[in-house]
């Protein structure tokens, strides 16, 4: 098992896992703390990309005979692009209505 987890360059699977976990939690942290809607959107993208890294790495290290993970990552990139496009359109609409893109605008409705 130990040999499986090291590729030609001698980098362990765990190193990439660490990268993706750090990206994931950085995304969650950013989503909760940023005040600007665009920055929140970027944080969500970090989360999505962290899972893309996971797919590619698991495929490359653990299941190299099939290409499932690679293709999943490709589809996810496309879907993330759609999501971003719609989110930016909605944020622009919000900017037109409120004059800025701060999350503090989003408090008219509560209760």
């Amino acid at each position, binding site marked *: 098992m130990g040999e499986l987890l090291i590729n030609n360059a001698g980098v362990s699977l765990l190193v990439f896992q660490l990268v993706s976990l750090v990206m994931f939690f950085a995304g969650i942290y950013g989503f909760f703390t940023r005040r600007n809607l665009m920055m929140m959107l970027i944080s*969500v993208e970090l989360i999505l990309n962290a899972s893309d890294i996971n797919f590619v790495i*698991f495929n490359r290290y653990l299941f190299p005979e099939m290409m499932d993970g690679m293709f*999943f990552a490709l589809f996810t990139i496309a879907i993330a692009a759609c*999501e971003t496009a*719609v989110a930016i*359109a909605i944020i622009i*609409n919000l900017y037109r209505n409120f004059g800025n893109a701060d999350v503090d605008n989003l408090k008219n409705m*509560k209760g």
Partner: protein
Amino acid sequence: MSYFDNFLIMCSEVSLLIVLLILLLFDITAGKRGKQYFQPVAILLFALHTLLNFVPTAAGEAFGGMYQYQPVMTIIKSILNVATLIIFLQSKHLFESIKMKSQQGEYYFLTLSTLLGMYLMISSGHLLLFFIGLETASIPLATLVAFNKHCKKSAEGGAKFILLSAFSSGILLFGISYLYGTTGSLYFSEIAPRMALNALQIMAFIFFLSGLFFKVSFVPFHLWTADVYEGAPSNVTSYLSVVSKGSAAFVLMTLLFKLFGSYVHEWQTLLFWIIIVTITLGNLFALRQQNIKRFLAFSSISQAGYVGLGIISGSTLGMTTVIYYILVYLFSNLAAFGVISAIENRTGKIEIADYNGLYQSNPKLSFVMMLAMFSLAGVAPFAGFMSKFFIFSSAAQQGFYLLVIVAVVNTIISLYYYLRVVKAMFINQNEQPIETINTDNWNKVSLVICTGAIILVGLLGFVLDIIEKQSFGL
């Protein structure tokens, strides 16, 4: 099997896609006079699609198991079709103002494309198709929530919805990536036997479920519901609360059965607490709402908890009652939203206090609203009573007595706030009630269908038999 045969198995998706493309082309090519008939054209085409796909065919799978078809999926898709059709019938008011008139084509197109996503999600046999379906169902929905470009509330609701749904699907995707990493496959049939109780898989399970719970709006993930429901135009709100929620509940159930079948004790414990919290908090928050759309949002949260009672039992009876509950909930909720959308689009009034004395000016609308509230609360002769009764019995059959007791107590609490609306319409005095509203004929048809169904579906026993024949358990 030839390549073409694959498409024959997924005929409901293909026919929906054809309807969608015809409407898109019609929107582009029709002149000003043609566009006056947009709503009838959309309704007729969609009704045709609903009729064509009404009868279940033999089970099968396409594209190497990516797409799986079982007869029960035709039933749930037909329920979603009927709901969408009723919402289309009610949508005329939305385009009466000049500002909104040019957006008519987009509304029908976007609604149908979210429906296509839900179809794919329901009959997926592979996590990739499931994820694509989920995103196809939620991204156009965000644009529908932000549909009214000139309304600040609508923009706010849309922004909340797209950011939170992107966040939740990100977490779900992270869960999928660990499922892939630990099992080496993305097919449901291959993942299920490889699920062991190791730490990474439990983490994947929790991430995956929290993404789905967001769509069904179970309690720790419910905070978006009220704001989005209030901000969206009321026709879109009814779509969110019936079609989107119904499909998500069904998908949650099938995934728990197919994918996490070996985790049954884990998710039953998890759902047990989530259902108790969902029903109770949804009810308690509904008590203090003044805005009728927010009130229905919290009521729909607690109704989702009742659906959970059928999911937790994990039996054939559980699946039957969940589908039956969604069917009844559809008619009750759409009857209420038909009245609300007519009143909101004509007068702009959405507070419960505005409904004081509605009976004096609009006796028929008040009557429909009363029936809807009785059915949602579960008052005896109406369909809502039967569906609640069946879903409680399915949970009790598996030994969840405590859960059923909590749910029954909550039903009594919910009677208070549903009857508050009825009291406002019939008993409260008001010098200036909302003026008499003449709804258009399509909307009248939809309200008649809903009223008839609320009274009849509970009495006709064969509805439950039809569903039961096709259902499956763990």
